[in-house]
C-alpha cells in the first residue's frame, strides 16, 4: 500500500498538470497571438472562444500546486523556494492577463489591457517553461531543503524551455482558433499554425537533444540497452504526428490539427516522464522521498476518486454547452 500510493499520486498530479498545460495552454496561446491582428472585433472574437472556460482552465494550475502540497509536501517545500522568482513572475503575469480579460470588456480604451493580456500570457508561458527547465536541470538540496541561490535556475537551457513553451502554447492557441472560429481569424490562424508547427518541432528537437547531452543520468535512461529498444518509438510517433498535423492544416481540416497539437504535448510530456521518473526533484528526491504520510494521501485519494469524475463531468458539460463556432461580432451576452 505504502509503496504504490506515491505512484498513484504522481500519476494524478501529472494528469492535473497535463490538463492545465492543455487547457490553459490554448487560452494562453490566444493571448500570445493577440498582436497578430489590428482589428478590435477580431480580438473580441478570439477572446470569446475562451471566455466561458478560462477561469476553469486556470483552476487546474491550483490543483497542480495544491496537489503537490497535499501529496508531496517535501517536494513542494523544495521546488517553490528553488524556483521562487520564476514562480512569482508567472503568478503576477497570470494576475495581469486574468484581470485584463475582464477589464478590457468594461474599459473604454482597450489598448492598455490588450497589451497586458498579451504580455501577461506570453510571460506566464515563458515562466512556466523556465520552471520546467529549472526542475529538469536539477535543484540543489541539502538535508531535505533547498540549498542553492535565488538565480540557480537562470541557465540558457531553462530559457530555451521557456521559449519552447511559448511556441507550444501559441500552436495550441492557433489550432484552437482554427477549430472555433471562421472568417479572417480562422484563415490567419491556419497560416500561423503551420509556421508554429515548424518552430515547435525545432524547439522540441533542441530541448530533446540538449537534455541528454547535458545530463548523463537522462542520456543513460534513453540510450542504454535495452531501454533504447522500447523508447525509440517516442520520437518516431512525434515525427509522424507532426507530419499528420501539417497535412491536416494543408487540407483545411478543423478539429484534427488541434487534436494533433495536443498529441504533440502528450508526447513531450511522456518524454519528460521517461527522462525523470522517479525523481520529483531531480537529481536527488524521488516521489517516495517526498511523499506525505500514507494516511493523508489515502484521505485525499478517497475525495479525489469521488470528486474528480464529477469535476471532469461538468467541465465536459461546459465545453459541450459552448460548442460550435464563434463568429465575428457575435456576443454571448
Amino acid at each position, binding site marked *: 500500500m505504502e509503496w504504490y500510493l506515491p505512484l498513484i499520486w504522481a500519476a494524478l498530479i501529472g494528469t492535473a498538470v497535463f490538463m492545465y498545460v492543455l487547457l490553459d495552454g490554448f487560452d494562453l496561446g490566444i493571448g500570445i497571438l493577440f498582436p497578430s491582428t489590428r482589428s478590435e472585433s477580431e480580438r473580441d472574437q478570439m477572446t470569446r472562444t475562451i471566455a466561458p472556460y478560462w477561469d476553469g482552465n486556470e483552476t487546474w494550475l491550483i490543483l497542480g500546486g*495544491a496537489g503537490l502540497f497535499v*501529496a508531496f509536501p517535501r517536494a513542494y*517545500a523544495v521546488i*517553490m523556494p528553488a524556483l521562487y522568482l520564476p*514562480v512569482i513572475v508567472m503568478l*503576477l503575469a497570470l494576475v495581469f492577463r486574468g484581470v485584463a480579460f475582464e477589464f478590457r470588456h468594461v474599459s473604454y480604451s482597450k489598448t492598455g489591457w490588450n497589451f497586458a493580456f498579451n504580455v501577461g500570457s506570453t510571460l506566464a508561458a515563458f515562466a512556466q517553461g523556465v520552471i520546467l527547465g529549472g526542475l529538469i536541470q536539477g535543484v540543489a538540496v541539502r538535508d531535505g531543503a533547498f540549498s542553492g541561490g535565488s538565480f540557480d535556475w537562470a541557465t540558457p537551457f531553462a530559457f530555451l524551455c521557456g521559449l519552447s513553451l511559448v511556441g507550444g502554447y501559441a500552436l495550441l492557441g492557433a489550432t484552437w482558433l482554427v477549430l472555433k472560429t471562421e472568417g479572417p481569424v480562422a484563415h490567419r490562424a491556419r497560416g500561423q499554425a503551420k509556421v508554429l508547427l515548424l518552430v515547435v518541432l525545432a524547439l522540441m528537437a533542441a530541448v530533446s537533444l540538449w537534455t541528454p547531452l547535458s545530463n548523463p543520468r537522462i542520456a543513460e535512461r534513453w540510450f542504454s540497452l535495452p531501454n533504447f529498444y522500447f523508447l525509440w518509438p517516442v520520437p518516431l510517433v512525434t515525427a509522424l504526428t507532426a507530419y499528420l498535423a501539417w497535412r491536416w492544416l494543408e487540407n483545411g481540416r478543423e478539429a484534427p490539427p488541434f487534436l494533433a497539437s495536443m498529441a504533440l504535448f502528450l508526447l513531450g510530456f511522456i518524454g519528460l516522464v521517461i527522462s525523470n521518473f522517479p525523481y520529483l526533484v531531480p537529481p536527488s528526491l524521488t516521489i517516495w522521498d517526498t511523499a506525505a504520510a500514507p494516511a493523508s494521501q489515502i484521505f485525499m485519494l478517497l475525495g479525489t476518486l469521488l470528486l474528480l469524475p464529477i469535476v471532469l463531468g461538468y467541465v465536459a458539460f461546459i465545453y459541450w454547452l459552448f460548442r460550435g463556432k464563434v463568429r465575428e461580432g457575435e456576443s454571448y*451576452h
Partner: protein
Amino acid sequence: MDFDPVVLARLQFAFTIVFHIIFPSFTIGLSAYLATLGAMWLRTGNDRYQHLMHFWTRIFAVSFAMGVVSGIVLSYQFGTNWSRFSVVVGNVVGPLIGYEVLSAFFLEATFLGVLLFGFKRVPPWLYVLSAAIVAIGTAMSAFWILSANSWMQTPAGHQMSGGVAHSADWLAIVFNPSFPYRFAHMLNAAYLTTGFVVFAVGARYLLAGRHMDEGRTMLRMAIGLTAILAPLQLFLGDQHGLNTLHYQPIKVAAMEAHWDGSKPGDFHIFAWPDEVAGVNRFELSIPKAASLVLTHRMNGLFPGLSSVPASDRPPVKVVFFAFRIMLAIGFFMIAAALFGAFLWWRGTLFETRWYLRIMSHCWWIGFVAVISGWVVTESGRQPWLVQGILRTADATSPVPGATIAGTLALFVLAYGVVFWFGIYYINRLIALGPHKVTAEPGAFSPSPIAAAQDAGREAMQR
C-alpha cells in the same frame, strides 16, 4: 541594507492575503444574492429581478476574476514563503486545501461560465441553478479554507512524530474546536459585506432619482437581510470570542489589552497599550465590562498578558485596535440596519434622504470589518503560525531577504494597479446601472405569459 526574511515574508503574505480576502468576502455574498434574485425572477416572472441579476453578474465577473488570480498566488505562497510550514503540517493542512480545490474551485469557476455566457444557451431554471451552484461553491470554499485556518488556531486530531504533524482523526481535524464559530462568523460577515454594498448602491440610485424601481428593490432586500444578520453577527462574534478565550486566552487578553489577570477586566473604549511597560496609557474604560462579556460575571477573572513572557505575546496594539475597528463597524451596522427597518415600517424609507445619503457612502464598511477581524485573529495567534506547534519565525523558506523584498515591491505595484482599475471599473458599472437586456430572438423568458404581463405593467406605468 539588511533585510529580515521573516518580517518580509510576513509582510508579503499579509499584503497578498488582505488583498485576496476583499474579493471572496464580496463574491460569497454576491453569488448568494444572484441566486436569490434568480429565484425571485423564476417565481414572480418580474423582469426587474432579471435586470438586477444581470447588472450584478457583470460586477461579479470583475470581482471574481480578481479573486481567482489573487487566490492562485496564495496556493503557491505556502511553498515560496513558508516552506517549513508545508513540511511540518502539510500532512494535515494539505488535504483540507486539496478538498477545497476539488469540491469548490472547479464548481465555482465552471458554472461561472454558464452564469456569464449561458443566458441564451440554457433554459432559465438551469441558468438560475448555475448561480446557486456558484453560491454553494463559494460557501464550500469558505468551509475548507476556514477549517484549515481554524486548525492552525486550535489544532486537534493530530499526533506529532519526528517534528512533523500526522493525522490521527480526520473528523476532529476538519471540525476542530474553533472551526464552527469561525465559519459561521466569516460566512455571515461575507453576506453582511455584500448586503451593505447592495444597500449603498440602492441608496445611491434613489438619491440620484435613477433606476428607482431597482433601487427600491435593492434597498428592501438589503434591509431585510442586514436587519437580521447584523444582530446575529453580534451573537456569533460573542460565541466565537468565548471559544477563543477557552483555547487562545492570550489572544483575548490582547484584544482587550488586559494585562493583570488577577483583577477583573475593564472594557477599554480607548487605550494606548505600552508593550514595554506592560500597562495601558490614556485609558477610557467601562469598569469590569470585559469581565461581564467574557465570563458573564462582574468580578470574573480571565488571563492577562502578563501571565506569559513577552516573547509569547502577540503584538498588542495591532490586535487591540483592529478589534475596536471591527466592533465599531459591527455596532454601526446593527444601528443602521435596524433604523432602516424602522423607516421601512413607518413607510418613509425612500424619502428620508439624510439616511439614504449616509448609507450610500457605506459600501466599504463590511470590507474593513472583515479585514480587521482577520488582523485580530491572525496577529492574535502570533508568535505562533500553528498554535503550539510551529512558530512563525521557524516556518520560513530558505530564500534571501532581498529576493522577498524585490517580489514584495512587485506585488505592491501590480496589485495597486489592478485594485484601482478594478474599483474604477466596478464603480463605472454601477454608474451605468441596470439596463434591460435587449430581447433578441432565441432569448429565454421564464414564461411567455409572465413576460407579457411585465410588458403590460410597464406600458401602464408610462
